[in-house]
């Protein structure tokens, strides 16, 4: 069964979620991956959307963060202040799922602006949303982003959400309590923060992807794990469920 790089990325992201984990989900790829996980190996995954829906179980993929289907299927709908203050901030969430416009060697994330300066950006992006506090407070963070030299840069133009700052010890110094974005899942493979250096390192390549292709899609000298593994391809079940999800 053939599949696209985006499908591989989505399946790999869904596999990063263990059953019964509590997951803070953004719309788009993170939501697709989380809902795929809930329909395959993680039926008890708890989905929290920043719109205030705790334990949402959407039958079809929501198109916005505040779709009615999220409220209709949630265990509880709470206010936006409550979802941030009572649920995210104290570290009750196991996994935060984030996207990025730019990400750097130390997994810092930019969704604010590119080029020029803050007052006069070349490209103005949407901004922070819930990301800075998701990146700070979730027990761990998974980033999903397509890998190319525009997105994977030596240093982000703006630190919207802190990954590992300038390297080891920075999260602790800043008082950030979650473990940070240890896992970045792309259309080419999986990058993990090196436990010693915090540098994003290619640990898995998706089937058919040469590690050199991942290196040339990266704006810094990407390290490749010496025992880089190949991601198992999507199973027919994963693909079938994913495609059914995306049809709706």
């Amino acid at each position, binding site marked *: 069964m053939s599949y696209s790089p985006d499908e591989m990325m989505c399946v790999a992201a869904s596999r990063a979620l263990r059953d019964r984990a509590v997951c803070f989900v953004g719309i788009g790829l993170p939501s697709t991956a989380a809902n795929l996980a809930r329909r395959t190996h993680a039926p008890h995954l708890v989905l929290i959307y*920043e719109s205030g829906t705790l334990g949402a179980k959407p039958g079809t993929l929501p198109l916005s963060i505040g779709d009615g289907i999220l409220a209709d299927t949630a265990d509880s709908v709470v206010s936006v202040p409550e979802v941030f203050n009572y649920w995210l901030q104290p570290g009750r969430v196991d996994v935060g799922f984030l996207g990025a416009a730019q990400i750097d060697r130390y997994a810092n994330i930019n969704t604010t602006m590119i080029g020029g300066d803050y007052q006069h950006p070349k490209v103005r992006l949407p901004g922070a949303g819930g990301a800075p506090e998701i990146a700070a407070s979730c027990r761990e963070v998974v980033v999903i982003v397509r890998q190319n030299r525009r997105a994977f840069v030596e240093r982000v133009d703006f630190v919207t959400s802190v990954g590992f700052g300038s390297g080891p010890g920075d999260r602790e110094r800043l008082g950030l309590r979650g473990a940070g974005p240890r896992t970045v899942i792309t259309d080419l493979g999986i990058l993990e923060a090196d436990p010693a250096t915090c540098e994003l390192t290619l640990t898995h390549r998706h089937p058919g992807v040469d590690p050199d292709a991942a290196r040339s899609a990266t704006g810094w000298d990407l390290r490749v794990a010496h025992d880089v593994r190949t991601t198992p391809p999507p199973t027919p079940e994963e693909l079938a469920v994913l495609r059914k999800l995306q049809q709706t």
Partner: protein
Amino acid sequence: MAEIVSLADAVGGLVRDGDTVALEGFTHLIPFAAGHEIIRQRRRDLTLVRMTPDVIYDQLIGMGCARRLVFSWGGNPGVGSLHRLRDAVENGWPRPLELEEHSHAGMANRYVAGASGLPFAVLRGYVGTDLAGQTATIRPIECPFTGEVLTAVPALTPDVGIVHAQRADRAGNVQLWGITGVQKEAVLAAKRSLVTVEEIVDELTPVPDAVVLPGWALTYVAVARNGSHPSYTHGYSTRDNDFYVAWDDISRDRDRFAAWMESHVL
């Protein structure tokens, strides 16, 4: 005690040039009809406050109503950029737009502080980000018991808070349900308020997960049927996702935008 009036009278009575105005609604219940009325009344120099500016603020900004935007996420949800917002920030068209930029957690807590009559709120947030360096309304604060340093943000106390809801009774008590976002806080934080509703009913029968805003805490209630379109009103309408997609094209070009506003809003 809420007065039930027409939308035009409510906006006319509440919103003045130079005011700080918050129109809230988190994807759901966005008060588009009220925003359009502000555009029709040609208000100017507004400071617009909103967690997720969405298409309604793209329209207000593109029509030159705003001087300043206080926000935390300025995109077209699921689609991409807000082109009128970008044009204002990147090119100063139709006029320059000052930004005061926060995170969702910061904005939500700023409303909470406003609703609580406190001058500031405390959260774990912003630490290590570049936002803290760009936004003057983010400051450190020390816990007087543990010495831990956290982040303070000042209360939002808009001159006018506007939200949309499912319904009100004849005494102006308002009921909303589904995703209720930060609407209660936005109304209570504001000095004056307007709730637009789909309908006025004799009695507000209880609904699970509903928020009730007592009429005595509101200034105006106005009927605006389908007043959240292209956003939606849980139980009354569905989100017009096609419109959000179409807006990407409509808003990309200044002239096309102006023509669309001329024929659909003015």
